[in-house]
């Protein structure tokens, strides 16, 4: 398939990735969705999980994101993620550390806001564990 879709991964600090790809699979809030060229326009929240980049019918790159937003148009997929790194860099130690920190945050949480933030951290840590499997 010759048609490609422009995939952009942006973090607050910088543009992490911008390249034409065949397909990306994004972990949307309501379930994973694959975006191919000419996909219908869509805006979705992204849950913590793994973005798969497909080229030549294979997964060529896997990136872990800690949630964010995705915008899909016919020719472009933009993912805004506050934290993102290649799945290769994720180890079980990192996941365990995050988990411990998240659990600590849960017990320390005083206000509703703290609690919801802690819950988010837990979700990220859990997604890391799932991603490693």
């Amino acid at each position: 398939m010759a048609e490609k879709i422009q995939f952009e991964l942006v973090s607050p600090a910088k543009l992490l990735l911008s390249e034409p790809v065949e397909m990306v699979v994004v972990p949307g809030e309501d379930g994973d969705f694959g975006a191919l060229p000419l996909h219908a326009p869509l805006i979705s929240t992204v849950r913590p999980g793994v973005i798969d980049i497909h080229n030549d019918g294979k997964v060529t790159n896997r990136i872990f994101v800690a949630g964010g937003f995705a915008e899909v148009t016919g020719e472009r997929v933009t993912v805004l993620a506050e934290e993102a790194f290649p799945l290769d860099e994720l180890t079980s130690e990192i996941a365990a550390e995050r988990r411990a920190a998240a659990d600590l945050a849960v017990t320390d949480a005083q206000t509703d806001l703290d609690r919801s933030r802690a819950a988010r951290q837990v979700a990220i840590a859990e997604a890391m564990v799932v991603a490693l499997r």
Partner: protein
Amino acid sequence: MPSLKDLRLRITSVKSTRKITSAMKMVAASKLRRAQTAAEAARPFAERMERMLGTLAGAMAGQAGAPAMLTGTGSDQVHLIVPVTADRGLCGGFNSSITRSTRLLTAELLKQGKKVVILPVGRKGREALRRDYGHLMIEGFDNLGRKGITFPEADQVATRITQMFANGEFDVCTVVYNRFVSAISQNVTRQQLIPFPVPAQSETVDASARAVYEFEPGEAEILAEILPRNLAIQLFRSMLESQASEQGARMTAMDNATRNAGDMINALAIKYNRSRQAQITKELIEIISGAEAL
């Protein structure tokens, strides 16, 4: 007339001052470059987020249930002002222009009978505003971005503001910061963050941008999530801009100081040489007239 020794001491002291200012200038120049790259690198995220927000707000327009962060609380009685300054001085008018602008804004709002709350970011702004508006001030943030602003730091400030907004502690939030134009010029900018003014969708946007979007889970849910994030991003951006401006201002200020010190050294050196000459002449005259008297 200062003595020769005094002059010599003055010259040495000005010389060491010049060494310090020129070193500070060079440090600021290298930090400026870093801060500038950071500010530029942060732009794509903010731009894309704005585009998404524009689309979302467009889709929500005319519908009930839009989050208060976008539409406002319906009143504008209590204003939260966030002046972004540096932690350190010696950077020309950088900090004072922010505090001046904040003072003007506060005075204006108070005159209109509004309430004002000030959340200072940066030590210098807090210290300067404490005298006049200490009673309006709440605890702010210091020591951010020692090694360059990171997003989690900006997020910390944003979380605090979000929480205050959720508690109904204010209606309108404005951030006052120095926007970076170039190393020698910074613009004091007041930007309203809450309610967030969504850029009007221009007529020139291409067909794909105007296309009807699908939303997952739903417009309201995404908006509710994206708005606090957007607040963090906008703050992050203004803090980055402020940091680049600070280094630019410091570089210019220190460049001036170095040049002034050089001028002063020249002037002092001339004065020193002249008075040395005068003293030699005086001594000679004394010797000659002493010899003649014999």
